[in-house]
């Protein structure tokens, strides 16, 4: 068992020995990796959809899908996927056809591209860019472009409204999101996903894992809130609010194109969970990474992947849980929340982190910093909570 990078190196060496230019193995690797990632996205999204349906069902005292496939309706998503694939492809007469067709591709491409820098396990990463986290954030922001394209090209007022809401929301929430991610980056002193995970190895006092979530709890909460908004999940799902905008930007989409939007949504959920895991929850760090009985690489690969996926899916479960418990926010509240609450908190966290890093790494200072940030957060939250809601 080898790391992914060394496998690629060997392939390069072999093809170079055959006298082929380096573009050939690159293309081969790119194709294989893309196929694996897209395959994973499809399977994982189907699983997540089924999972979400089961979770929502159990939250709502019902069973959810029970028939297809026998055991708890596990094949329901596959059946739905086949149905969507076989449906007639409808492009509305008034739509801008080129943009309409392009929009789901942009959304899906952006979602897939973000998988490039996800560190699955030690050494198992497609490409460990030295600007890894920045790349992920930048690529994720492309999703909004696709959403706006979809909303506008459908030539439907509801979808245009949904697209505009989505644009406003994404632009607003991107700011605190990036700021909250800066805290771990400052502590680790790198933007590479691999090195960020490595920086979180070890334990404090021998039992508390050195995850960034503990010193950066505020940043984690800000990031998680913003990531809900980035994925258009409840309580921030106003771009696609069924009861207000029917379904928002994808109201005119059906069949395969709709399926791609749906897939991209779940792929994105996984991406934000993966970012949170990598930046705050120690990525693939966990016990048994150096299990004596197994070869080092096998233990690393298996348990690294296991811990990474467990953390990701726990976060995804929390996202689903929130969705089925909370009510939707209103547009103005949403914007106010981003600019008036999250942004100051993220800034305060950044300042405190910087101060602590410069003045010394005493644990006391960390605690003090967190206390200050929490205080600011509480004061701000109390102020916005006590403020009378806009009338008329």
């Amino acid at each position, binding site marked *: 068992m080898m790391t992914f990078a060394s496998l690629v190196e060997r392939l390069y060496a072999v093809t170079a020995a055959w006298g082929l230019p380096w*573009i050939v193995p690159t293309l081969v690797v790119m194709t294989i990796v893309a196929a694996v990632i897209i395959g994973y996205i499809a399977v994982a999204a189907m699983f997540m959809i089924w999972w979400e349906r089961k979770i929502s069902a159990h939250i709502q005292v019902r069973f959810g899908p029970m028939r297809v496939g026998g055991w708890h309706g596990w094949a329901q998503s596959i059946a739905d996927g086949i149905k969507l694939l076989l449906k007639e492809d409808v492009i509305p007469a*008034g739509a*801008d056809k080129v943009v309409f067709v392009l929009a789901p591709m942009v959304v899906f491409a952006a979602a897939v591209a973000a998988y490039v820098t996800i560190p699955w396990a030690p050494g198992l990463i497609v490409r460990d*860019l030295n600007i890894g986290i920045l790349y992920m954030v930048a690529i994720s922001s*492309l999703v909004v*472009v696709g959403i706006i394209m979809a909303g506008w090209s459908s030539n439907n007022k509801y979808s245009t409204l949904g697209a505009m809401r989505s644009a*406003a929301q994404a632009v607003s929430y991107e700011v605190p999101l990036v700021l909250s991610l800066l805290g771990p980056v400052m502590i680790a002193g790198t933007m590479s996903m691999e090195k960020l995970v490595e920086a979180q190895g070890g334990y404090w006092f021998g039992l508390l894992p050195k995850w960034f979530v503990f010193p950066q709890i505020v940043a984690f909460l800000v990031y998680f809130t913003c990531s809900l908004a980035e994925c258009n999940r409840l309580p921030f799902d106003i771009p696609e609010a069924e009861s207000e905008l029917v379904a928002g930007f994808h109201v005119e989409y059906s069949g395969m194109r709709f399926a791609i939007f749906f897939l991209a949504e779940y792929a994105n959920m996984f991406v934000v969970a993966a970012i949170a895991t990598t930046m705050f929850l120690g990525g693939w760090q966990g016990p048994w990474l150096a299990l004596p009985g197994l070869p080092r690489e096998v233990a690393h690969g298996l348990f690294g992947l296991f811990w990474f996926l467990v953390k990701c899916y726990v976060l995804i479960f929390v996202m689903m849980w929130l969705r089925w418990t909370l009510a939707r926010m209103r547009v103005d509240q949403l914007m106010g929340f981003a600019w008036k609450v999250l942004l100051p908190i993220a800034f305060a966290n950044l300042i405190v982190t910087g101060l602590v890093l410069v003045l010394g790494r005493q644990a006391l200072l960390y605690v003090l910093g967190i206390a200050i940030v929490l205080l600011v957060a509480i004061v701000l939250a109390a102020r916005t909570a006590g403020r009378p809601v806009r009338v008329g």
Partner: protein
Amino acid sequence: MPVKLGIFYFLAAFTVWAAAVVVLGKNIVRAAVALIFSFCGMAALYVLLDAEFLAAVQVLIYVGGITILLLFAIMLTSRISAKTARVINDQAFLSGIAVVGLVVGLIYVSTSGIAAISGPPRLPETAPFLGRALLTTYALPFEVVSVLLLAAMVGAIILARKE
């Protein structure tokens, strides 16, 4: 390496095509979409120039920020699926001549004299260097730009709000 050159030609053609759609396209929203593609092509070219950090910044700010703002403004100001008959004003002919002159001059300048320069085989990681430079050598411009951003923000808010 010829492969790299091929990638460059492909990206260059893509970027120029997208830019041409931005400038000459009839439909303003399609022009904005083409602008996004041209920015992405540009970012890819930055990667070819070993400027990964700037490529990411390009995507984050231009694609994720500026073009979204542009699309927002387009949707606020033009009809859904509006098709204006004329998108080019009366100065097209004169501007065309001037621009052809400009491009010829620029290409002449670009190809004569400085073509022989070739840099180091590969730049090291640029992000830490840029960060240090911005806060030491370029601290003053950095502060000036931040003041400019603040001014722009205040100005934009005042201009855009309704009474």
